[in-house]
């Protein structure tokens, strides 16, 4: 079929867009480095100033890489959730998965004074934050799934997600009230979201997590396509519901949980990117959607981070605010234009 060739053209286009977004992202920041110098620095030459070299390789490149992982991972988890829950409005933020991760992070960052007996050692290193946030997101995801099996109504599912958001933010407020100012500040900064400030160690850990989640998604491609017909049809096509659901849930949980642990709760990327991608790639085939959604999410995240940098100023806006400012209107526009959101 000739549809394949049109998709490969779109893929080339979206790949070029990604390279452009990376270059744009790397060449902007609080220190003004001329674009041509960035290019020459990236191609391996030594740059005019030592400090530029340092900024480029130790700050900006890891940050761009993180943005790719965060955007791609969140968008992919959104795609998986929309297919799994048969719900076009599903996404890590809407279903309360990000809130669950926040709760885990909050308990760790602010509740440690109460819980110090339990987590006596090794508290507050990278791993424990990832584990806490992932556990939080898994917990919420599991409850949402249990509810989803009892209640088929997609609206009810979204409302339950919202309620989870409220519960976790209430618990977070209570923790915030009792915690020290220093811990509170740490949590607040985490909740703004950021793709910078990750050590090379943390970036590689994030890469492993996102890679694992993506791999699991790739192995689920066939089952995800079957789920488009509904669970009963999927079962009649030989899909083992229990096993495939578990794999997809774990993939979703570690993608959303892992990303949120490192970059904070970032809104709307998971919900909006799959829909935006379907505007470009007019198909439901997950073989095409999974790489496309990942790339699109990465591009969007790079652009949002570039905006958050406020070029040539030392200020950095919270990236969560930027993604909401970009994402919420996109969702509204999609709803108004298409009248009905479909997945």
């Amino acid at each position, binding site marked *: 079929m000739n549809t394949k060739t049109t998709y490969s053209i779109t893929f080339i286009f979206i790949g070029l867009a990604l390279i452009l977004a990376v270059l744009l992202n790397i060449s902007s920041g609080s220190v003004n480095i001329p674009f041509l110098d960035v290019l020459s620095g990236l191609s391996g030459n030594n740059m005019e100033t030592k400090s530029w070299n340092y900024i480029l390789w130790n700050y900006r490149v890891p940050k761009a890489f993180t943005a790719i992982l965060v955007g791609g991972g969140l968008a992919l988890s959104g795609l998986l959730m929309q297919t799994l829950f*048969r719900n076009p409005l599903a996404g890590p933020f809407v279903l309360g998965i990000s809130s669950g991760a926040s709760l885990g992070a909050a308990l760790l960052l602010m509740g440690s004074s109460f819980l110090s007996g339990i987590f006596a050692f090794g508290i507050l290193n990278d791993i424990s934050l990832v584990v806490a946030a992932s556990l939080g997101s898994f917990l919420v995801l599991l409850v949402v799934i249990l509810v989803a099996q009892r209640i088929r109504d997609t609206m009810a599912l979204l409302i339950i997600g919202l309620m989870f958001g409220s519960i976790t933010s209430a618990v977070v407020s209570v923790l915030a009230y009792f915690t020290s100012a220093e811990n509170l500040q740490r949590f607040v900064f985490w909740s703004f979201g950021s793709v910078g400030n990750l050590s090379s160690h943390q970036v590689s850990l994030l890469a492993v997590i996102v890679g694992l989640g993506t791999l699991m998604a*790739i192995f689920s491609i066939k089952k995800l396509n*079957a789920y488009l*017909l509904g669970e*009963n*049809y999927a079962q009649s096509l*030989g*899909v083992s519901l229990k096993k495939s659901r578990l794999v997809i849930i774990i993939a979703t949980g570690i993608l959303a949980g892992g990303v949120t642990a490192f970059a904070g709760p970032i809104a709307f990327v998971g919900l909006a990117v799959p829909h935006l991608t379907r505007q470009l790639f007019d198909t*439901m085939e997950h073989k095409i959607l999974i790489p496309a959604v990942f790339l699109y999410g990465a591009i969007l995240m790079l652009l949002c981070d570039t905006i958050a940098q406020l070029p040539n100023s030392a200020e950095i806006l919270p990236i969560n605010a930027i993604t909401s400012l970009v994402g919420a209107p996109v969702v509204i526009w999609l709803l108004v234009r298409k009248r009905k959101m479909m997945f």
Partner: protein
Amino acid sequence: MSNQSYSLRTENLSIGYGTKVICNNIEMTLPKGELCAVIGVNGIGKSTLIRTLGKLQPSLGGEAFINGHKIAELKPHGLAKTISLVLTEQPASKNLRVSELIALGRQPYTNWIGKLTDEDKRHIQQNLDAFHLEELAMRKCHELSDGQLQRVLIARAAAQDTPIILLDEPTTHLDLYNKVQILKMLRQLAHKKGKTIVFSTHEIDLAIQLCDKILILNGTKNPFGSPQELIAQKQFDNLFPENLLEFDERTGGFKVKK
């Protein structure tokens, strides 16, 4: 029990939900290549029977066999190559294209990532043609009429290329023309391709005209046989409470009592 003598057979099958049996003692034996309608009043268990035969829910007693194998013992993958389903539920994603949806019927035969071989593509094309869907192939499901969507779902089941096809009320919500069209297609599929097809329906008069066998669910005896046998046994007369409708043997349909 030789494999040739029948394709689908139930022995003293009980169906229901949880522990609640809603219909007992279902006995049917269908040879290969026959079209069978399941009829009965609302709530008697027509859909439950289809779902039980399709192994979407367990039976509550008795056995069901396909070509000599107990359905309960079929593994998911073997089941997918034996039974295909058309359910009353709409596809979860209405954004699927017709060709994509029919291609999903080939899943039991494709590799881990679902790559379609030439053989798979041939099956898809064949069923697009057989169900007059060539012009709709690139349409999305939400752009189709009810009748078109039903044809697509049946084409998908046919593309799954299983000896048995089960359909749950394939003609509801359709106008008379579409109802007849769907049932005639099923009849062709059974007779020309040798598929054994069981479907639940409320179209008793059409079923009498078009089906090889009919199973009447009434919760106790559940008569099964060819339409002529059932008419001769006056099995349709007691299908509904007698105050409103009467069965007319000459026309094979029900008349309203005035």
